């Protein structure tokens, strides 16, 4: 991974408290796993930035190396890699995502 693209990803994850590298957009996800994570964030009414990797092949390949994680979607909160679809869903069910958001002082709404 070259330095430029690494810097580009660094900038994205540091400028957006919550960002999701996904296939498609939060409005129109192009993959079921991206849809699932996007839905968790929408359900919690979290303001997040969706990065459509289908529109940027450089990011699509480099993000996997960046996080040492082979699949997309990938969720980042405050610059830290949180996980992919399975982990995010499990954390949501256990209330761990909610706790993480609370600790990081990020606004969300839990309708449960």
């Amino acid at each position, binding site marked *: 991974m070259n330095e430029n693209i690494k810097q580009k990803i660094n900038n994205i994850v540091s400028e957006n408290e919550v960002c999701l590298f996904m296939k498609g957009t939060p409005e129109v996800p192009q993959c079921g796993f991206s849809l699932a994570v996007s839905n968790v964030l929408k359900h919690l009414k979290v303001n997040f930035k969706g990065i459509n990797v289908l529109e940027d092949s450089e990011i699509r390949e480099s993000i996997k190396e960046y996080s040492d994680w*082979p699949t997309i979607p990938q969720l980042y909160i405050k610059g830290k890699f949180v996980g992919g679809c*399975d982990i995010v869903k499990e*954390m949501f069910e256990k209330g761990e995502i909610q706790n993480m958001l609370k600790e990081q002082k990020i606004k969300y709404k839990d309708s449960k």
Partner: protein
Amino acid sequence: MSLKIEEIKSLIKEAMPDAKITIQDLAGDENHYSATIKSKAFVGKSKIEQHKLVYRALKGKMGNELHALALNTMEI
């Protein structure tokens, strides 16, 4: 590009000999699977580290030959 259940199992077994593995072919296309894996190798590790162990066992096939593998990892 696809990977058979037995191939996935044997790759995981190679890396984690004690693993108890259940795999389901979700779509019947040898490309979308769900796996439950129990192993001592997961003890004391975060979920991210646990899933990375499995991905490492699959030797780069995840995201390539293998499109989708939903993971549920558990400590024994």
